[in-house]
């Protein structure tokens, strides 16, 4: 078997690559400056490739699963209704500088979007996009990728993966066939890496300490649907769903019709979140998850048990956004840690 294809490139070349891509009408998205969001760029000087940067406020999921996506438009006419699909004008897109915790979320979400019904909106976006992941040397108290089976250097979900090396150069790995094709298409910006180049690689980032064992969390969840823990951790949750909206793997949506006036409108798919009271409320007024602790249990259980049961993976990449932004300081890793503790008492 052939070894992973490795290339060497530089900061300067990547900026030139942006220039070439923009000439070829690609959409180019770069992680914004520290703490901000992914933005569309056109100019190499706006490219941010910074292994030390803090994760953006919103994850990269909005480029595959946008916060609002029109499904079709409608208009009443004399004999009925005209329907119109949103025209597919998606351009080829490249996402630069995606952190492992964001990139890994794409195949994770892909499972639910391709389980029985194939979500063409999600799939089309994934197909059109080349994800250039990047090893991450940031880590703060909120990060826990290492507890979710990932690491600051995992290339899961990336098509091309960059690792910083000396003299502002990068060792690039073509992870997927799509990534390889991309590197081939833009081969003037990537040189084949030889053994000496690889020696230039900087030391692997340490990454956050491992905080919990996800398998043990699942074991405990299997038997503790009812447990005092849920009230302890969930009663101060305000149900704002900031956690779900900023999460790279949360994928719930709500489909609504919106009118433009008296005779036309559109049907759209919007982000939704299980921490809202309205999320499970029935038309009758009954709410099977009537209290916040039950909603919080859903969040933890979906992430560490249900998704695992159904798709064999946990629904969390350890980016820490939910905790970083929670207005009342609820910490998902700490809860998983607590579950670990309770589990080991049982064993």
């Amino acid at each position, binding site marked *: 078997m052939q070894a992973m294809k490795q290339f060497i490139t530089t900061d300067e070349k990547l900026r030139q690559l942006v220039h070439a891509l923009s000439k070829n009408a690609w959409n180019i998205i770069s992680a914004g400056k520290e703490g901000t969001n992914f933005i569309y760029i056109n100019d190499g000087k706006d490219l941010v490739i910074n292994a030390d940067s803090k994760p953006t406020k919103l994850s990269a999921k909005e480029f595959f699963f946008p916060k609002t996506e029109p499904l079709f438009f409608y208009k009443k006419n004399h004999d009925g209704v005209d329907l119109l699909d949103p025209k597919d004008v998606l351009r080829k897109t490249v996402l630069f500088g995606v952190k492992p915790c964001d990139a890994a979320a794409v195949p994770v979400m892909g499972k639910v979007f391709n389980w029985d019904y194939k979500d063409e909106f999600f799939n089309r976006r994934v197909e059109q996009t080349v994800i250039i992941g990047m090893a991450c040397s940031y880590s*703060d108290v909120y990060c826990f990728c290492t507890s979710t089976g990932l690491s600051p250097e995992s290339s899961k979900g990336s098509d091309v993966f960059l690792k910083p090396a000396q003299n502002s150069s990068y060792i690039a790995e073509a992870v997927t066939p799509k990534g390889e094709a991309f590197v081939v298409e833009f081969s003037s910006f990537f040189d084949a890496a030889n053994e000496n180049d690889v020696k230039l690689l900087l030391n692997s980032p340490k990454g956050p300490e491992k905080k919990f064992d996800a398998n043990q969390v699942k074991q405990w969840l299997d038997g503790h649907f009812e447990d005092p823990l849920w009230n302890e951790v969930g009663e101060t949750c305000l149900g704002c769903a*900031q956690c779900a909206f900023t999460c790279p793997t949360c994928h719930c949506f709500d489909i609504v019709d919106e009118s433009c006036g008296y005779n036309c409108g559109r049907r759209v798919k919007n982000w939704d979140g299980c921490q809202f009271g309205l999320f499970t409320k029935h038309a009758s007024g009954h709410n099977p998850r009537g209290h916040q602790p039950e909603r919080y249990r859903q969040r933890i259980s979906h992430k560490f048990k249900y998704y695992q049961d159904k798709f064999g993976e946990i629904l969390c990449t350890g980016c820490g956004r939910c905790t970083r932004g929670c207005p009342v300081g609820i910490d998902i890793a700490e809860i998983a840690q607590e579950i670990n503790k309770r589990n080991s008492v049982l064993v």
Partner: protein
Amino acid sequence: MQELIQAAQAALTSKEAAFIIGYALTPDGKKTRPFIARTPDEAAKLVFNHTCAHNLAVYLTRIAKPKEGKMGIVAKGCDTRAIVALIQENKITRDQVYIIGVNCSGVTADVTLPFGADNLPSKCIMCQVQVPPVSDVLVGTAAPYDKPKDAVTERMQLLEAMNEHERFAFWASEFEKCIKCYACRQTCPMCYCEQCIVDKTVPRWIESSASLRGNFSWNMIRAFHLAGRCIGCGECERACPMDIPLMLLNRKMGMVAMQQFNYRHGVNPEEPTLVGSYNMQDNNEFFK
């Protein structure tokens, strides 16, 4: 700290309060978060320090009212304004709450950074209530701290200087970021409606899509619903994951209340609410 714990334990032991909504340290010991103590033992975990930015009054309308005893709450001066406001709006009565007032020396804007003049939220820069004006028992000491210039005031002036199109464009660029997570509403002590207008679907007044039209109507209507009611705690802006400067709207409404009616909400529990009352002498100049 001991004072706070003793006050809380006394209230729980005497059954005056059924629980105390307060702050406890997170396991790393570096920050605090809301915590509800139900027994004197649990009350021993209560703390108060510079990271206690949250306005806990939000829980008074979220939590189930106890059958016996009062709802105990640890409140800074600014938080007591929310409590008084809730009393003015008949959401709670004064004798349903047991207020452990904490003298406050300011809180941090960013809990991960040390407390200091460059890490103060706007509410602390403008604070006039380091000593809570209302309480059943008062604990702690209020130390003076350095107050820099207030960034919100400066941004208000910038906005003031813009023409209408620039201002509209400014808000369009801000509202465009809104993801309709409603964190602003959920953390607001004065947003307690059983069904928020944005959740009404027949008819749907405000689109739930995170698109510019619905984002404009949502943010304008929320600011309007808080007009004359916002007590300026800044929780909405603190919670907003997209950093939308919501206080530029709320502050403006507060200024109108002050300038035209000489009114501050949440100061006098006996006073009728501003928008719930009227005066025949109100400004009539803008009517043709």
